């Protein structure tokens, strides 16, 4: 391919603002924000407990009902994040490195992605099977980051 001399650069921005609705998941985010409580939905047909919640059951298409979930849970997998681009919002409430984990709340059939705070981030600090409990932030916005996990014994 041939280059035809220098090239011209220009600035642009594509900006999309949202005031989005959580739709049928609103009770989850409202419970997080207003009650500092983790919730899920239980399928009336097959007893699957969804968290992330679902208004209908993807397994059997049954109706689901809201239920409070335990704030304790079990780590199913974890990874140790050392590099996060500087423009991620994550930096506002999380120092690097940090542990990203999949945590199964007690009583839930599924896992949540969330951060596990440990006193010292070293590889192996958060093994699969580790018991953890949710800690809710003082200032909550109705987002997943309204809480994080810590080892249960701490």
């Amino acid at each position, binding site marked *: *391919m041939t*280059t*035809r001399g220098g*090239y011209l*650069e220009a600035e*642009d921005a*594509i900006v999309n603002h949202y005031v989005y609705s*959580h739709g049928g*998941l609103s009770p989850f985010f409202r419970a997080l924000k207003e009650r500092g409580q983790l919730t899920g939905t239980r399928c009336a047909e097959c007893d699957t407990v969804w968290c*992330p919640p679902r208004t209908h059951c993807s397994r059997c298409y049954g109706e689901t009902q809201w239920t409070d979930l335990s704030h304790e849970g079990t780590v*199913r*997998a*974890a*990874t*140790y*994040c*050392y*590099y*996060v*681009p*500087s*423009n*991620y*919002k*994550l930096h506002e409430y999380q120092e690097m490195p940090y542990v*990203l*984990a*999949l945590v*199964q709340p007690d009583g*839930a*059939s*599924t*896992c*949540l*992605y*969330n*951060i596990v705070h440990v006193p010292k981030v070293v*590889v192996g600090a958060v*093994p*699969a099977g580790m018991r953890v409990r949710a800690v809710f932030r003082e200032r909550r916005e109705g*987002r*997943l*980051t309204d809480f994080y996990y810590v080892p249960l014994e701490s």
Partner: protein
Amino acid sequence: MSTAQHRANASKASRPRVGVAGVGQIPFRTRYPEHTFQELAFEVARAALRDAGITTDDVQGAVYGIYSDLLMRQQSSDSLVHDYLGLRGKPALRISAGASTGAFAARAAYAEIASGLSDVVLLLGVQKSGDLINPENQHRGEGTMMSESITHDVNWQHPVTPFPPAAWGLSLNAHMERYGTPTVEQLAKAALKNHRNARLNPYAQLKLDLTLEDILNSRIIAWPTTMYECCGFAECAAAMVLVSERVAGRMAKRPVWIAGVGTSVEAVLQDGDGENYGRVPAIRRSGEAAYTMAGVTKPREELDVAEVHDIFSGLEIMAYEELGLCAPGEGGRLVDEGVTERTGPLPVNPSGGRIACGHIAGVSEIFSLCEVTRQLREEAGERQVAIRRGRGLVSTVGGQSANIAAALVLERDA
């Protein structure tokens, strides 16, 4: 025989074959500031048409693999490309499927031909990525990563998950806990293999002269993945001419056939039970579907070459296992034994793979199909692998948690 196999065999007999008649590539580069996306697409389309010995008059339609509108700074960019290529008025189809986009587009192009709708289809992937910027520090890569980050589930992953090596790394860590492998040395060895292969590939973005120590000592991105074990962002385009069997004889070169194609879109990894931890079910399912269709039962023996999506090197090793090149937990050993070296019994990523050859969703999947076509044609120059059985594999994976996967088996006539 399973119902699926039975159906596959039954329809294989009656289904028209679809062949690759031409390939067109340019090197992956961090940025092509001297070319628009239309110009990149033009370059590879022209090359693919020339390779097939045809012109745009012969092309009945096109399928475009374009993942991100935001990286293009343009929605419906496929129609602008279609016009620029001189195909205005003809059918076009744009596919988007994360880092499997180009392979999903290949499936759609296959179906377009096998259904009888078209005989000659241009399959083309193109993607800009270097026009983004983080205005705070003028870092382009950070602008691109932030743009791509909304691939993660915005509610359930995005707030805590920086980018694929972290989200997908959960599986790799689980694999290491479950099987005790791959070791960090095996991860580095697989990366080293790909970096070495890239040095022989004129289309490769990186041609680094690295040692195992360089790789092991490079910055950790998300443990255990280091910088040199992880792909970056590139700009690129790649194209193929796909044809039905009945027009294949009119092409300049003997076709390489698409013998099998499988895709699988899995859930974001949030299972409660442990079965899928350390596994990549989308890769497994897509591979099984492609093998069934192609009649491949012992991939380790029946394939001459494979290009798999080493978004990070751990994923390449896990792909060995999911694609049946070895048993679960044995992928690291394949690396130690040199099985997947370019000169080994089953070379994987002779192109240099995503880590070294380059990667951008939408293009690298078609690029891999071009590479395997060239290998099966024995036109791969310095990086040519030994062709014995005449069959090769392309496996791709993308999405929120390595949950969008495709596999294609290519084969040449004996």
